[in-house]
């Protein structure tokens, strides 16, 4: 059984192919990495899967449903969530409320109950506030439960984004460069967090430049080059693939 199936996916920008002939699938319950040089189309692929871009051609299936061309907020209902390469934190809100937005689909988002503060709304909000605090502790943000997002350091904001994405209660979580901008010890901690998330049964898809992190956590790796699939397989398989070595890792790649 596959969780995500991408078939013959194409995306062109002004005639230039950013993603071409891409077919692959992802099984549930594992950590997958998508790697490739800059401009290989990794973030474009994320944007296509999460509905921010519409594919020029091809289909995307998630959990046995055809989700091609669905907007992001509908995909969230299907159980897809993500973080962003350059942070997309709600800096006008508290850290807690950032996570609460992740629970949007669980809370009552209708107008009249909110306007008149129906007891059910109040009760659910209180319940999810507790869960949000627990989730913040899970990602290591227990010290920031009462903080404003705008007052938090960069590394904490990266975790906050993960907490918000987890609040959506996704079947699949896409992390776009979770270690970018972090120092080695912070990267190590993110490594641990990703494994913890996968341990909860969430399928993790990772785009990452830090190869040590990629080799350490990935069960399965997809290599992109110029928008096409170059190779696919387990870490050792990919590392010994001559095409990958030539195109991407270079001579020193094996030792890293």
């Amino acid at each position: 059984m596959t969780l995500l199936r991408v078939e013959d996916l194409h995306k062109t920008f002004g005639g230039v192919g950013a993603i071409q002939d891409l077919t692959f699938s992802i099984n549930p319950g594992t950590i997958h990495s998508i790697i490739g040089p800059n401009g290989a189309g990794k973030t474009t692929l994320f944007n296509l899967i999460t509905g921010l871009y519409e594919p020029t051609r091809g289909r995307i299936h998630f959990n046995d449903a055809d989700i091609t061309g669905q907007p992001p907020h509908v995909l969230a209902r299907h159980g897809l969530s993500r973080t962003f390469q350059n942070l997309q934190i709600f800096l006008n809100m508290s850290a807690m409320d950032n996570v609460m937005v992740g629970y949007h689909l669980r809370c009552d988002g209708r107008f009249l109950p909110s306007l008149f503060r129906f007891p059910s709304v109040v009760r659910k909000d209180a319940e999810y506030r507790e869960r949000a605090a627990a989730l913040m502790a899970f990602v290591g943000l227990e010290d920031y439960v009462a903080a404003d997002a705008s007052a938090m350091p960069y590394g904490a904001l990266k975790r906050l984004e993960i907490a918000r994405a987890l609040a959506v209660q996704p079947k699949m979580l896409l992390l776009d460069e979770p270690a970018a901008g972090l120092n080695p010890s912070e990267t190590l901690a993110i490594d641990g967090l990703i494994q913890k998330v996968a341990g909860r049964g969430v399928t993790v898809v990772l785009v990452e430049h830090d190869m040590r992190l990629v080799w350490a956590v990935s069960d399965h790796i997809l290599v992109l080059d110029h928008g096409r699939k170059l190779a696919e397989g387990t870490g050792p398989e990919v590392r010994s693939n001559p095409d990958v070595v030539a195109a991407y890792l270079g001579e020193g790649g094996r030792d890293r």
Partner: protein
Amino acid sequence: MGFWQPRRAGILALAAVIAVLPAVLPNAFYYDVVILVGINAIVCVGLNLLIGYGGQISLGHAGFFGLGAYFSAVLTGTYDWPPLAALATGAVSVGVLSFIVARPILKLKGHYLAMGTLGMGIIISIALNQEVDITGGPDGMPVPAFAIAGWEPSSEQTWYWIVAALLMISVWLALNLIDSPVGRALRSVHGSEVAASVAGVDVTRYKILIFVVSAVMASFAGSLYAHYTGFITPDEASFFHSIEFVTMVVLGGMASTFGSLVGAAILTILPQLLTVLHDFEMLAFGAILMGTMIFMRKGLVPSLVDLAKRARP
């Protein structure tokens, strides 16, 4: 929970001010100013939901205010409708109109959204000026009293309590909304539209929702204004009036409901004070506007709150 304290404190403070004011207001002139503050504040509380919380600018909300005023004036004056029915019809019609224009207009961002809403407001104001047979044109038209089942508010004091009660209700509802899943969704749209949609927030739906809510509140306040003053002109819907509403919201402080009240109060009272300057009134008004925005960019109330926080860490 300690979390809710500022909200309660704010509402209690507002109630206290409303209760004490009649004791210190010396005469009808002062009542008049305070009533106008209240009516403007209702518009601003709604507009603040759109601009301050939702992050969507509108330079055309006086159009909705004017439409509400003219619905009341025309339906009660020309067609002898009961005022409440006219007010409701105006609010519903403005709601429908704003719903229709919201989807295409709110696709725009930044300066384009400013232009789109500005254009919409100006078109409404030109229509009110030109449809002389219905609206009386630039000369304006009288509005009958606000009669409800034979009773009508005769004095400034009565109007004061009506407007105060309606303002309290508006503030209470706005605060409810802000502290709810809907309010969080709105603020998240302001913070980052992509992140909001990925979290499951239907961005377009909430933008449209808050645009319609703020338009209906403006229409409602417009109807009240028409009956209170008894005479309206198309200036109620003018571009300049739209700017005044936005300025009240921004001057008081975006994303601060009580800031909107302060902004409405200052910009309603200021011109009254500046009349002593005669010819220099407009000049002074412009200078004060510029100065406040340059030196207190976040607006009065948030800037003062920041100051207080810094003084007491």
